[in-house]
């Protein structure tokens, strides 16, 4: 077996999240130990592989979940998989969220659409030792109520389970007849944030979503006083080998597969076209 060969993995469950997003529960023959924020390469045999960040808790050792939007060749093949299908896994690759830096602070999590995937893993990590953190604010933006990923968790289960320590701000761009919650872009969840977070300068913000969402969220966070080194962004690049060799994920002086996929705004702010 070479470092390019994936580990045989069973798809033990397929959960439909939205019309174009599914979560796959994966059980690899050999466990892959990952930390929240790291990514894996998922192979559809004979078709190819793509980089995804696990959305499950790193504390669950025997299985791993990935939440995938159908957007291209490999993701379409993935969406056709059924329970019992065989896929391949390589990894984990890259750097995780530096939880050591997060401890004792107020943490703001901002997710948009399928960008919720790594944030779910991060949230479950933080929740595992919730007493280590001063406060958590979880903001989530989706296009419509139908597009909310992990609906049961963010609208119900987590809200009840962590009501003392975590506040949730859920918004949709466009409501429908049944939606009673907030309507507005995800950046509107950052209005009046001082009600939840007492010290913006020391607070950590973790943002993941489409590039345009990360851009405007970051601009607003800078505006309300977040430090450049305290804003964590997920850089979606074309990671392929995961080994620092193939060159596809080069970004400025970085290789996203080696130095990311999580970067602080401070690290990436001067890279040309960083939001593209």
């Amino acid at each position, binding site marked *: 077996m070479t470092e*390019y060969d994936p580990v045989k993995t069973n798809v033990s469950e397929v959960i439909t999240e939205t019309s174009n997003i599914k979560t796959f529960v994966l059980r690899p023959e050999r466990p892959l130990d990952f930390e929240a924020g790291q990514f894996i390469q998922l192979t559809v045999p*004979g078709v190819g592989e*793509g980089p995804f960040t696990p959305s499950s808790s790193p504390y669950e050792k025997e299985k791993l979940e990935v939440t995938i939007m159908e957007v*291209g060749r490999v993701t379409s093949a993935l969406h056709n998989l059924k329970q019992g299908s065989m896929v*391949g896994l390589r990894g984990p690759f890259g750097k995780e969220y530096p939880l050591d830096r997060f401890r004792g602070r107020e943490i703001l999590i901002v997710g948009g659409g399928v960008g919720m995937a790594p944030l779910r893993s991060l949230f479950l990590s933080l929740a595992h030792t919730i007493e280590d953190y001063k406060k958590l604010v979880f903001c989530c933006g989706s296009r419509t109520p139908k597009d909310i990923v992990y609906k049961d968790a963010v609208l119900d289960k987590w809200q009840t389970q962590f009501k003392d320590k975590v506040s949730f701000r859920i918004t949709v761009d466009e409501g429908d007849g049944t939606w009673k919650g907030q309507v507005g872009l995800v950046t509107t969840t950052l209005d009046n944030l001082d009600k939840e977070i007492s010290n913006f300068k020391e607070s950590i913000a973790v943002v993941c979503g489409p590039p345009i969402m990360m851009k405007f969220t970051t601009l607003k966070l800078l505006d309300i006083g977040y430090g450049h080194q305290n804003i964590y962004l997920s850089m979606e690049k074309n990671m392929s*080998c995961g080994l620092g*060799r193939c*060159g*596809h994920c080069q970004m400025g002086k970085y290789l996203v597969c080696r130095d990311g996929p999580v970067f602080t705004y401070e690290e990436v702010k001067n890279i*040309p076209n960083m939001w593209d």
Partner: protein
Amino acid sequence: MEVLFTSTANFHHLLGNLVKKNLLYAPRKKGDFLFYERIETASPKDLILHTNRPVQPLKSFFFPPYQKVGQYFESASPEDTETPKRVILGVKSCDLESLKTLDSVYAGTQFSSSPDPQYTRARDSSLLISSDCLEPDEYCFCTLLGSNPHPEEGFDLNLSPVDGGFVIEVGSEKGKTIVSQDQNLFISADENVLAQREKTRADSLAKVKELNQEVEVKSPYRDMIRETYASAVWKDHSENCVDCGGCNETCPTCRCFLLQDGREKERFERIRLWDACLLTGFARVAGGANPRPKLSDRFSNRLFCKFYFFPENVNLDACTGCGRCISVCIGKIDMRKVFKDLEKERSKGPAEKIK
């Protein structure tokens, strides 16, 4: 290390011995071009040792254009293909320099947590017998990158032509072993032949410098490229680019690859193919977002990789001045002129924005 002399006849004797146990490759003429070709017997008239570099980049030997790197979901272990022992003759200084970049990616640990086994095996099983470049052409610019047309390091043995034979310099333990196995073929190099070598080398160096007089710039490329991202020079020069990726393919330091999966009967395999960052889809992600949709961005990115990414990461310029990218270019783009124009622009004042 040791500097020896070997007569032409003795050198061919040495090759005769080497070809028995190794595959021998040397530059050969095909039409107007030189290519590394397999040579079965080392007969004197076949050898072209002191022109400039062949068309293929040296990387082809260690990082081939198409290579199987894995096969998966199979209980049987993959067939153990033995790496052939190779002697590559007539390697030029610019190509030896390129191995520093390739080694940093494929044999080092700065980029990857472990060396690439196929690359390192191919490197280990090759003997590099380099030779002085005495016929630089209009595309050569090694001197602009701070190196010389004669090899100084990275070879196992190096040849410099002198009256009656070669000055042969030993550059590695591997080279030392080769020499010690045929000790009777060598004598130590005397002052006379060494003086001759210096003279020939100086002439060649002067030629490269003369060829580059008009394109020479005052600062190193890696210093010049900083802060030039928004310069109109990139757009101007990329206007003739046809997006073919030829500069990538022929470049001895371009090291990017694509992984492609295939199915062969009941087993799946993974192939590594050379990829080119000049091509539109190189950095595109699923869903279509592309950090470098414009040709001028991809064009500048290639040189930023060479003179910003590599210097920042491993303190190396990923360019050796071999000139292949210039000679291959359909649009007649010359990176030396790009830097010349960046210099001119800088002397005029702040960069003009593209957008």
